[in-house]
């Protein structure tokens, strides 16, 4: 059987090679452009992240790469195998786990469910049971070994999905929002598992999609920021953050800001002003204060802002200079915030974001920060 990778492009050894990939869904009243000419290369052994809000096109790209969807235009290959024509080869070397996945049969026990999938990947009968037990231990589902799948919690279910994803020892693992809906410890376990799996064998590749910025920042070797079907930037987290390094970012806590953050955005030297938590005005519900993120051309622009706040009858409760985050990169690139309740006012414009804020973004960030300490 001819299984040699098709030399679609010059770099046939790339783990992922997408050239000008477009995808349009038929819809009424207008077709939806999910991907608009994506160019992406991922090297073997990379943990590559796709970061973007809901509807950015991340899952569509994953579906194309995992042979579930055809691109409307362009070409893509996985380890040199064409996603349109060499689907069998790709399916033998990859696996996919999605957040909130419910696949399987509720009546089966954890062990049985995994064994069934092991057979789909060609493991022998006894070999399958052995491998299943090994994976159950690995993901920490020992106590649920003979529990019915329908009785698992969300976190346990995701562990089960991970075990399923590892059954065939894939060379490339597609993780589509793998920590979606998980609590802090379950999400941490998932991330640790992912990294440990990848570290075990050189060349194992992961494509991770997430809208948890801290997660992508911490885990990925490189990432692409995606919005509305287009890649806006690709690089390592450090490289991307360096793009906004030249600007000064401050986190301001105010006792009040009756005229809204828009008043600050119009000041000279202010690139953008955004309310970052609570409600539209950035009110912190617990402390009854207003939180504002200011992006300034340089530190010198802070003086006029402080003066202006005095004129607005607003008192500064705290002031902190922030290191740039991927969120800042996103705001810089897209001109709007990533999350639902992030209102960004740029000089001359006032835009509301369209994405949705994950409930535990803060906890992800805090937990990762704690881990890195």
């Amino acid at each position: 059987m001819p299984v040699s990778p098709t030399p679609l492009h010059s770099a046939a050894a790339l783990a992922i090679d997408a050239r000008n990939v477009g995808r349009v869904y038929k819809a009424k009243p207008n077709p939806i452009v999910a991907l608009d000419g994506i160019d992406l290369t991922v090297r073997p052994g990379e943990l590559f992240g796709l970061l973007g809000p809901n509807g950015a096109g991340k899952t569509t790209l994953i579906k194309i790469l995992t042979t579930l969807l055809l691109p409307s235009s362009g070409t893509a290959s996985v380890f040199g195998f064409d996603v349109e024509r060499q689907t069998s080869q790709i399916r033998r070397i990859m696996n996919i786990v999605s957040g909130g996945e419910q696949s399987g049969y509720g009546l089966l026990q954890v062990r049985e469910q995994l064994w069934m999938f092991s057979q789909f990947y060609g493991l022998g009968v006894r070999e399958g049971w052995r491998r299943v037990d090994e994976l159950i231990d690995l993901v920490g589902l020992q106590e649920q070994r003979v529990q019915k799948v329908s009785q698992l919690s969300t976190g346990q279910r995701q562990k089960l999905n991970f075990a399923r994803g590892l059954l065939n020892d894939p060379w490339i693992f597609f993780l589509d929002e793998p920590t979606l809906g998980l609590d802090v410890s379950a999400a941490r376990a998932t991330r640790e598992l992912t990294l440990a799996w990848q570290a075990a064998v050189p060349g194992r590749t992961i494509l991770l999609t997430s809208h948890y910025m801290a997660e992508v920042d911490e885990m990925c070797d490189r990432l692409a920021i995606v919005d509305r079907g287009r890649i806006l930037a690709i690089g390592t987290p450090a490289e991307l953050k360096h793009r906004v390094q030249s600007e000064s970012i401050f986190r301001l806590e105010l006792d009040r800001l009756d005229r809204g953050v828009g008043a600050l955005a119009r000041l000279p030297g202010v690139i953008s002003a955004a309310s970052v938590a609570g409600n539209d005005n950035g009110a912190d519900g617990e402390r009854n204060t207003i939180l504002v993120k200011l992006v300034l051309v340089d530190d010198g622009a802070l003086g006029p802002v402080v003066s202006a706040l005095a004129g607005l009858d607003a008192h500064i409760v705290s002031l902190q200079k922030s290191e740039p985050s991927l969120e800042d990169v996103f705001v810089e690139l897209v001109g709007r915030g990533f999350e639902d309740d992030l209102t960004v006012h740029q000089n001359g414009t006032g835009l509301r974001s369209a994405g949705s804020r994950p409930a535990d973004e803060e906890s992800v960030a805090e937990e990762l920060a704690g881990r890195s300490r």
Partner: protein
Amino acid sequence: MTALAEAGTRWSRQADPESTRRQSIAQVWRGFLTATRLGWQTEANWTNPVVYFLYAVCTPVFATLMLVFMIQVISGGNAPPAYRAYVVIGSGLWSFVVAGIAGLAWAVLDDRERYRMLKYLFVSPNDLLVLLLGRGLARMMVGAMGAIVTLGLGVVVLGLPLDLARIDWPVLVAAMVLGLVSIVALGLILASVAMQTRQDSWHYPEAVSGALFLIVGAVFPLNILPTFAQAFGLISPLTWWLEAVRRALFPDIQSGIGGAGSLYASLAGHDAPSGIEALLALLLTTVVVTLAAVATYRWSEHRAKERGLFDVTTGS
């Protein structure tokens, strides 16, 4: 009136037990109507009216045809018209039973396995029982369509001797009302079962209605059955419903319950029940079945809650 005063008035109205009861009845009624409308939409919005009509009548018409043909095969065209009429009526009315029993059970399976809505319905202010009854009613309408068309074809094509002037309307109406209540009660029992069983139990209602078909004298008189099977038939409301409807529509038709050597005749001391007698027996058995159904349902609901069965998918 100030907002505060308005709120105060509203509060005092809510505090009035009579008013609260009225509101809760209105709430139950609204829930029931919504569930019926939803049931009808999920039943009917998948195709155009012509296909839907075929869908509604296909099963009862062909089930009746099967029986008519069996009679034809054996009698070689010389089947007694009275027996053919007996079979057509029983088989046509059976459409109500199949649809009524399946409606509630399928609502449970549909909402749990397909739409994943059962848990949300359960935690809504409405009683799940009321919502299921609404969903079941929608399917019952499909059954009604099948029954009417089958009986209509029986009259027009097979020459069923229907005389509108001789129909005993009061008995017919009372029997239909009680009969439908008993069918819904049986459906509720099946819904209770579906709440406990796996997704593949779609055809359980069909199996139950098929088994009931044997003991209720739908297509042959009970006296053909062994005595113990006749006893089961006599405690089923469906037996009395069919008998009452049959007698109301066709006063001269043979009784499905009595007759020479029947258990009924030996117990009652006369050959066949009158229309009123059938109606009273129907009332009694319907009350018993309905109480049993509600008790079974409550038990099932409790068990489902205990075992977390409202939000599982159970395919195999």
